[in-house]
């Protein structure tokens, strides 16, 4: 049973560029959340998608946008990259009706902005 899969695993981008990260949720899960984890910090919530709609958003600028597809997979897009966007980006999936029971995380995409 595949867990949450994220691609790519590592990425290097230049300041000002745009990036797209991808996530396939655990089999059967219908809700996808994205988190940003800076070095030495806990993950910070970016946004959550269910039924192809953004349901909740954390304190992140509009440069961060997302999408969820009919098969529940998701993309995170970041425009106009800044050096401070360098972090581990984590995707987490769950069932919409069981969000209080926790999330399954992927291994993340390590983004380095130079």
């Amino acid at each position: 049973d595949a867990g949450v899969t994220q691609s790519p695993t590592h990425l290097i981008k230049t300041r000002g560029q745009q990036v797209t990260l991808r996530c396939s949720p655990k089999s059967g899960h219908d809700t996808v959340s994205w988190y940003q984890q800076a070095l030495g910090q806990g993950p910070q919530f970016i946004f959550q998608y269910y039924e192809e709609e953004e349901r909740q958003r954390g304190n992140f600028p509009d440069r961060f946008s997302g999408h969820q597809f009919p098969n529940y997979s998701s993309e995170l897009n970041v425009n106009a990259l800044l050096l401070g966007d360098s972090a581990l980006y984590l995707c987490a999936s769950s069932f919409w009706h069981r969000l209080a029971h926790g999330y399954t995380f992927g291994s993340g995409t390590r983004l380095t902005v130079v």
Partner: protein
Amino acid sequence: EDQVTQSPEALRLQEGESSSLNCSYTVSGLRGLFWYRQDPGKGPEFLFTLYSAGEEKEKERLKATLTKKESFLHITAPKPEDSATYLCAVQFNQAGTALIFGKGTTLSVSS
């Protein structure tokens, strides 16, 4: 002010030396408190969810407890493979279904 605070930031133990990690929170309307384990370069791995004060859960050498404003993760007779960063997160009414994480405690167990 941080909503979730974990202490200590780092902990070094000898194999077999039991100890506890602390997670305190300031939020009201707690819906759940979560413990995760994270290995370097990996995503968090789910350990426990606690919902109300007095609740306890166990898994192998780990035991999590919850009081009104804090949780403890007790590690009994740890082994080197227990070395990891342990993250605490809360879900509370004002934040919807998002998880609010602490900065974690990095545990090192030497043989």
